[in-house]
């Protein structure tokens, strides 16, 4: 193509014009405010109810944090164990990836019956939602650790625990970070979705409530808040991954963990 603009510039132009259209089209009445409130009214809505949004954000963040401990912590541990032992891995992994085909949202009503509509049900649901893909991702990643490194350690007389602590764990760090990224993103999805479905607090609940009264600006303000949360999380993980980049060459020779998006590992919705 003979366009002489650099791709980055074009992309930025596209984004900027989209933002401007977001403001202009609803104001001009081309798109009804109900469908797409202008950017300014969205921000105004969020600003006016900042306290309410802040409180909801706190609830959501709390649920996300706790769920992450279970989902990421558990997923990384389980993935590491299953990934390093050939027999359990061959046995269990295909079963786990089969479960991945099931829309796990259908479990949420079960949790609301068992645990009520408060934070517990959301944490339980989001923890499971994030656990499975994390475990899959970490188990797969563990297998990419260069076995020669372990052999070299053995030849130097390293005991089992020395091999684990001084070789396997450091070599697994890129994998672990990747698992954190996957698990965390999915935990956020899980928490917000469950809040939207049945809840009494949290950002998802707020979004739903405003939707039922057709208050688009407030709905969109909530959506923006969730997006901001997701972006912040992603950026934080990328920062950590960059800092830890020296370790990357222990597995996929130099390839960035964020460049790979194994399709099966990404947020379902």
């Amino acid at each position: 193509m003979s366009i002489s603009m650099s791709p980055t510039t074009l992309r930025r132009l596209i984004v900027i014009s989209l933002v401007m259209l977001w403001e202009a089209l609803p104001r001009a009445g081309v798109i009804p405010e109900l469908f797409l409130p202008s950017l300014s009214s969205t921000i105004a809505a969020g600003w006016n109810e900042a306290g309410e949004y802040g409180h909801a954000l706190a609830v959501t963040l709390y649920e996300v944090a706790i769920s992450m401990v279970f989902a990421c912590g558990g997923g990384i541990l389980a993935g590491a164990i299953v990934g390093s032992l050939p027999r359990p891995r061959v046995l269990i992994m295909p079963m786990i990836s089969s479960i991945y085909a099931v829309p796990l949202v259908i479990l949420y009503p079960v949790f609301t019956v068992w645990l009520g509509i408060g934070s517990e049900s959301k944490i339980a649901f989001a923890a499971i939602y994030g656990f499975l893909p994390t475990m899959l991702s970490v188990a797969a990643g563990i297998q990419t650790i260069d076995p020669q490194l372990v052999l070299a350690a053995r030849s130097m007389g390293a005991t089992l625990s020395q091999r684990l602590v001084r070789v396997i764990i450091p070599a697994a760090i890129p994998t672990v970070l990747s698992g954190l990224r996957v698990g965390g993103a999915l935990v956020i999805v899980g928490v917000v979705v469950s809040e939207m479905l049945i809840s009494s607090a949290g950002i998802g609940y707020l979004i739903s409530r405003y939707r039922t009264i057709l208050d688009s600006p407030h709905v969109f303000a909530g959506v923006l808040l969730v997006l901001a949360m997701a972006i912040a999380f992603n950026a934080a993980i990328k920062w950590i991954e960059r800092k830890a980049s020296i370790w990357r060459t222990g597995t996929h020779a130099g390839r960035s963990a964020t460049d790979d998006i194994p399709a099966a590992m990404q947020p379902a919705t």
Partner: protein
Amino acid sequence: MAGTLGVKAARIAIVVTMFAVWEMLSRTGIVNPRLLPSASDTLATLWELLQRASVRNDLAVTASEVLTAFVLAVPCGALIGFAIAENRYFAEVVKPLLFFAFSIPKSIFLPMFILVFGVGFSQKVGFGFFSTIFIVIMSTTTAVESVKVDYLTVARSYGATPLQTAFRVYLPSMLPVLLEALRISMIFNLTGVILAEMYASRDGIGHQIATWGENFQMKQLLAGVLMIAVIAMTFNELVRSVETRCSHWRT
């Protein structure tokens, strides 16, 4: 081979054990049977549900939404994905935007679909489409890029026309990847549609499950969950077996 047979048997044993534990927990009252109906009760309810016209109707509605969304999303996504793979410039402009779109939770846009479409068929299909199209785009791009340049160079050096290259090099090379892409896209699609149904809908199996949950009808709820799980996993495994058959030559 003896190895895989033993593994399959072990897996079946694990599943059977889980059902047995479930049954035991409920029947002995360790877990309140009202909260956790026994496995046998659930299976019996499942059987009964499958006979019910309303449930069958719900399943049909969901299936039609899923298929419609799929039929719409796949060609659109494939076209865009193909364009990205073939055109460097387009790719460089669009890929970061796509990665971004991919990394944000799309379920939060569900209320928007309701504001625009109201509650009904188009809302659910729309959201299903939205959930699926991104993964289709990415998978198509990956699939096209996965065709090794070497193969294409060989074809070209023997004078293959674009059509011949498409059918004799691209297609066989991409087939396993495409199948996998379709399978994963379907998973995303199903998840999106069911979520939309659970959130705001008048029919569909997702809505029914949400209703059973609201009314504390645990037997039906668990039966419904089991039903969807089995359907989803069966479909998944079917496509996977076709995939394996087609990809025996892959390294």
